[in-house]
């Protein structure tokens, strides 16, 4: 039962990483990267590393998300390449 939850988390993690790298809208990419961070934190919880999960959730899903969204708001919204 436990490995099924972990397998599901890994699948959503890979999907979110691929989608976050391929999407053109930079704001959507920042939000999907935040989802990636949060899923990494959930995987760390399932591995038993509560402290790493705490740091990942707070920094990756909190501070870095805010910073990248502010940086995107100061440049252009869409990627051109």
């Amino acid at each position, binding site marked *: 039962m436990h490995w099924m939850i972990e397998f599901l988390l890994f699948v959503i993690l890979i999907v979110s990483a691929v989608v976050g790298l391929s999407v053109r809208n930079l704001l959507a990419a920042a939000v999907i990267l935040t989802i990636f961070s949060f899923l990494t934190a959930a995987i760390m919880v399932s591995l038993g590393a*509560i*402290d790493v999960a*705490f*740091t990942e959730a*707070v*920094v990756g899903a*909190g*501070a870095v998300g*805010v*910073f990248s969204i*502010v*940086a995107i*708001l*100061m440049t252009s919204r869409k990627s051109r390449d």
Partner: protein
Amino acid sequence: MSSGNVELCRKEAAMMAPTESPIIHLASRGISPVILLIGLYVFFHGHYSPGGGFQGGVLLAAAILLLRLSLGTSLSQPIMPSWITLRLSALGALIFAGIGLVAVLFGGNFLDYHFLPMPWLDPAYLRYYGILMIEVGVTITVMTTLVSIYDDLLGC
């Protein structure tokens, strides 16, 4: 870094003006103290359970960044002014290095809490309070540096 409380940030006025919605204002003003409280809780659990100075500092910074995002930089100046952030960051680093150097002065290694000059405490409690003082410095530095990064991104 601006020094005035009422001076509006140029880039913020051009790019992301503070929202006028009363719902967002009320919600962020209500949620931010709760995040501050959770940050303090995490900070005081640094010795013996998950948590610590870094995570508590980021949570304290997240509470202030929430106010900066919703109310705008100029309205959220009273809770943490822009001119104080880098100075508090230097103070936190000074606390960290100072406690380590006090241990060196009294004959130990760097950050060896056993040699701190507090002879009325048991060695176990000496290390306990030594770690607590180190965490105070780490928390102050992490919190104010994150707020300072946000202010510098907007050019305030």
